[in-house]
Structures are given as C-alpha cells and as structure tokens.
C-alpha cells in the first residue's frame, strides 16, 4: 500500500434524481430516473427534448442558502454551493482552516444563464450580474461559503472538467501540498448549452439509451457534486470515517477532433491505462466500470472499443448512469464519483436504464438491473470536447 492515500470523507450532490446523497442512492436503487420534459427554462425546443432537470427554481435554491433577494448567484453557483456545503457537513468539518484546505471546482457553462438575460442590454441589473459570467465566479462563491482562503482553483475541460478537478485535488494531497481539499463540479442548464448540443444533433427526443444499438443521442442534465478528500494523516488525527479512497487517475488527449472521439477510443484507452498504473492494480482488479456512456452514437462506440482494447472479451460489469441523470457536463465526473463511492459502500452496481440491444461492433451488454456484488475497485470515465479524456479509480480500502 502506497504512502499518502487519498481518503474520501464527505460527499454532497444535487441532481435531477435527488437533492442529497441519500436521495440519489434511493433513486439509483429504485430505477427512479430524473429525465423529463423541461420546466424551468423557456425554450422553443421544449417539446423536442427531454432533460435531467433539478426541479427547484433559482428562488427556491436561493432560499436553501438563505441568500438575500438581490443576489448575483448563477444557477451553477447555487447548485455548487448547496452540494459543497453537504460534502463539508458529511465530512464533519468544523474548523475549515484547521488544516491546509483547498477547493478545486469545475464548470463548463459558468454563469451563462445570467448572461443570457442581460447580454447586449446593459442596465443597472447587468452591472450587478456581469461578473457572475466568469467560470471562476461559482468557485469564489463556494470558497466564500466554506471559508476557504488558501489554494482555490477551477478546471474547465468540457465534460471531463470535474474528473480533472478531483485528479488535481488528489495529487495535491499525495504530494503533501494540501491536507484536505474539496473537489467537484457544477453546471446549471442554460439555453446556451441546450442549443449548442441541439445544433450538433446529438440530443435525443426520448429517454437516452446508453450502449444500445439504436441509441439516438444524449439527454442534457444539470447537477453539482463535491467530495472531501483528506490525507491519511488528517484521517488518523481526526479519527474520520472513510467512505472510500481515490486510488488512481489518468488524463490523456484523444487529439483526434474538437468534438468527436476517435474510432479506436485512443484517448479513453490511454486515460484508463494511466489510471490503472497509478492505482497499481491489474485491469482485472476493477470490479465495475461507471462508463461515460452519454448515449451518443460516437461516444459509446468509441468508449466501448477502448474498454475492449484493455479487456478483450472480458470487459468487467459496466453501466452508464446517464439515463438516470442526463449528461451533466462539467459536473458529470463529480456525480459519477459520488455514485462510484456509493457502489463501493453498498456493494451494488447501478443499472444502465433503457438498454435493449447490444451495439453489433461491440457486443457488450451493460448491467441492466440493480445488482449486488462485492466491489473493491470501481473505475469511472469522463470524456469531453477537445479530446479531454479522464479516468478515476475508486477503492474500498
């Protein structure tokens, strides 16, 4: 066992399947998906798409944080603050500055939901809201809420953003730069992203069907999730309950196309290979893969090929949870990190909903029912535009 393990001692999550870790677990164990027609955003595409939306309005979320009426929190910041607060609470942190504590968040869309409202129409309100546009804004607000004044950073690598935030946090703990770090990501739904994915013609008008031969595309979602990572020393000193460990991580670039994944899943293959090496385990030690599995024709084929390059005909049990939550972009790596830890804690694999027929080129069948199994290592993939591929490996011990 290597020195300086990275323990996970707290988790918080807001997603379309629940406003807490418990609610998310309950939904995952009971096939309760969060995909439905859009409610909170006025868009002309509302009858053509289904999304994983958090039903609380911004006003309701603001109340959960006791914010004054005239605030400048984007939806991304609101969701991020609530989820990060839950994580710190579960980790039972009373004095955040008692140890060298950092925050690494991530977002893709940032405060675009606010910018959409005042763009090219400067007025008194835009003066208040304008700086909420920037990607750093939600991170600053979370840091303020948690009282973090030390190392604070933000990653943005599209749909693999949170995985990279988690990875940096783990590396800073391993190298002794930080004792404790809150890591994760947040992205609220915005017209900008809905229309963006719509123009790429990769949005499904039905519930998405990851790894299915007849998959039509993804459902967008919104979410935020944070994990508290702590060093072995802090865990020992504070006698902390450990939920799981972050054992491995890998990052590579597909260097193939700005938005499409390469046919042989090169970036995904490299990211998984690196993560296995850092975790110092053999591929077959992985008991369950929480796949990126967006349900786009391109991703699932490419990711499946990458898994087959590593495992041949013996791909471990795998599933994509995106049919529950939708693709939550920058937050995806963080919510799926939470799900991976929940899988380890409960020795359970979550179903890949809506699957019927295997992709002929792959002949891979995901886990389609809630399945109990002793789990020691769970691997989670996150891939993004720009060829940014990241893999995290979580372990029980």
């Amino acid at each position, binding site marked *: 066992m290597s020195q300086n393990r990275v323990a996970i001692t707290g988790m918080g999550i807001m997603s379309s399947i629940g406003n807490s870790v418990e609610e998310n677990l309950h939904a995952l164990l009971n096939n309760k998906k969060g995909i439905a027609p859009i409610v909170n955003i006025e868009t002309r595409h509302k009858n053509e798409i289904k999304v994983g939306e958090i039903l609380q309005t911004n006003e309701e979320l603001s109340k959960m944080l006791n914010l004054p009426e005239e605030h400048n929190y984007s939806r991304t910041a609101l969701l991020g603050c609530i989820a990060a607060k839950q994580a710190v609470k579960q980790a039972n942190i009373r004095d955040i500055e008692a140890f060298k504590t950092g925050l690494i968040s991530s977002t893709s869309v940032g405060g675009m939901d606010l910018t959409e409202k005042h763009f090219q129409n400067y007025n008194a309100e835009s003066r208040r809201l304008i700086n909420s546009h*920037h990607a750093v804004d939600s991170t600053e607000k979370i840091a303020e809420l948690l009282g973090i004044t030390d190392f604070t950073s933000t990653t943005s690598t599209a749909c693999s953003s949170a995985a990279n935030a988690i990875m940096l946090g783990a590396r800073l703990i391993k190298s002794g730069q930080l004792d404790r770090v809150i890591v994760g990501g947040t992205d609220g739904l915005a017209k900008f992203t809905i229309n963006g994915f719509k123009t790429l013609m990769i949005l499904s008008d039905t519930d998405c069907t990851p790894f299915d031969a007849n998959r039509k595309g993804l459902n967008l979602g919104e979410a935020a999730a944070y994990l508290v990572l702590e060093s072995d020393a802090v865990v020992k000193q504070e006698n902390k309950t450990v939920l799981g460990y972050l054992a491995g991580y890998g990052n590579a670039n597909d*260097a193939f196309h700005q938005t499409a994944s390469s046919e042989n899943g090169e970036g995904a293959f490299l990211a998984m290979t690196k993560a296995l090496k850092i975790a110092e385990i053999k591929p077959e030690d992985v008991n369950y893969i929480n796949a990126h599995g967006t349900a786009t024709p391109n991703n699932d084929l490419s990711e499946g090929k990458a898994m087959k390059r590593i495992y041949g005909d013996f791909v471990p049990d795998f599933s994509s949870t995106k049919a529950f939550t939708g693709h939550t972009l920058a937050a995806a790596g963080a919510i799926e990190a939470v799900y991976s830890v929940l899988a380890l804690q409960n020795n359970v694999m979550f179903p890949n909903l809506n699957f019927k027929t295997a992709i002929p080129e792959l002949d891979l069948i995901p886990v389609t029912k809630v399945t109990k199994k002793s789990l020691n290592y769970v691997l989670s993939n996150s891939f993004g535009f720009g060829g940014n591929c990241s893999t995290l490996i979580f372990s029980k011990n």
Partner: protein
Amino acid sequence: MKPCYINSAVSISAQDTLNDSSFLENTISFEGKLAKAIHPNYKKFISPIASRRMATAVKMGVAAAKKALELAELEIPDAIITGTGIGCIEDSEKFLNTILDNDEQFLTPTSFIQSTHNTVGAQIALTLNCKGYNVTYVQGAASFESAVIDAQLMFHENVANTILVGGTDELGKFLINDIILAEAAEEQPILTPFGEGAHFFTLSSLKQNNSFCVLKGLKIFNKATTETIQTKVEAFLKENHLIPEDIDAIILGKNGDAFDILYQSLQDSIFKDTPQLHYKHLCGEFFTASAFGFWAATIIIKQQYIPDALKLNSIDKSSYKNVLLYNQLKGQQHSFTLLSSC
C-alpha cells in the same frame, strides 16, 4: 517542489512582443479603454483553412505555443496545460447572439464547438497530435498560475520531462463593453485599459542547454488583506529559503483600482528598497495578464536588464537573480511567483 527550468518564453500582446527583438524599448501607449493584441502573420503558424475557423484566442494561443516549442527545439511536449479567464468569448458571443436574435433558430454548431474554455489547449493538442496530459484552468486571474502549478506538480511526480504551459485571453466584442461600463461605475475603477494576449512557455524538469531561468516557487491563494499580505509573502519567501532583501525586482500587477493598496502596502514596507515594476499599463488588464509579467520576468533574468517602461521606482541592482511577481484581481485570485537565474 522540484525546480522548473524555463527553456522558451513567447508573448503575443498589445505590445509588439512577438516580433520586436528589443525588450520593450518601443512601447505603445493607449488612448482608449482597449489594448488589442498585435497579431503576427498567422500563416507562419497555422494553415489558412484552419485559421479561418479560429477565433482570436485560438489563433494567438496556437501561434504562441508553436513559437515556444520552436524556440525550445521541442517537437511534442509531455503535457499541455493552459489557463484562460474569459475563455473563448468571441465564439460564445457569436453563438449567444444567434440564439437571442433568431429565437433559438437557424443555428450552426461551429461557434458552439469552439466556445468551450478548453478550445485553445485542445487545438494545440490536435495541431501537434499530442496525446499527453491536457488540462485547462479557469481560475480568473490565477488561471495561468494554476496551469504552472500543475506543471510543477507533474515534475515533482516524475511523470513528465517537458511541459508546454500558457495563458490565453481574448477581448471579444460585446461583453467587454458592459464590463467596461460596470467597471467605470466603481468608486475607484481599473485605470489601465483592458487587454488580451497569449503567453506560452516550455518547461523542463532538468536543466537543459537552452534553460535560461528557473521557477523556484509559485503559490496561489484566494483571500488576503493589507494586514495579511506581508506575512504571506514573507512565509512564501521563507519556504524558498529567501528573505525580502534577496529579491532583486518585484513585479506587481497594478491596474489602478482600489485593490492596488495590496501592492502599495508591500512597496512601502518590505520591498521599499527593491526595484519595483509594473506592466498592466503595457498589456492591459485581463485574466492571464500576469503571464505577461511572468514573460517579462524571464527576459529580465535572461538579459539582466529592466526596460524603463516597466519601472515604478529608480532603484537598480547590479544583477537580477531573484524576481518575485505578485498579482491579484479585486482582492481575490492572488499569486506569488518566484523566478530565478539558473
């Protein structure tokens, strides 16, 4: 942390920093609120077909990155780590305008595809066919520094020998006007113009023949006040086995706003007898403007010379061995960077 050797430094900025071989001798001053970058002939770096689709930041970033690799005689780095504060705002604005003007109809994907913050890092990877580690940081004024810290960490972990790091920001065309209006309404607003630029550096874990400078330490933190900043800088120097008197020049991210008191408190105390420098009057204020300061520091160490345009006081030193940078924006996203001769 292991030292990081710097083998090339490239700046595309509102000054002619890419083409002019003199070091900030012929500087331009700005009348208005914008300090737009002086663009190179991009044909030298990017094919015209690819260039046509690229927004300003992507072009600047790819060109600066390629030039940095060329100067360091490096074909493919082990990792590409970039920072940007505002991201690809030109394409974001283009896409947003079409959504708003046409009520979400008649949209094409190109500007959306290129609007994500990681576009510059991704396009560099694609251009070089570099499959290594690739991350983009978006921590406001500490975006570039976040990227450099990641590189430092990779050397510490022995997982890379050479890394390309850089910072890129573009002005865009619309949001910047509102940012200027909002800033002007502040009691003590930013007085330098708003700028843009791309700064790229190749770093190595081992000293090479072409290494001309070494990064000894870098710290980012989110909050500080005039009461705490002096203690923080002293602690940072101590971690690097230095005292304030060892610093041969301090480069400050002054922009004229109310938060300049943070810099002033250091100028008036521990660094009052140190050569004091500023640079944002030359490159403008933008989230990765501190990379212009970083670039200037590496050239000062290389050439052992401080151009007048950078000087805030008239103190000179016989040699410039240790240069410290301090930057922050609106009292947040602070960074200390220590560069030394090697």
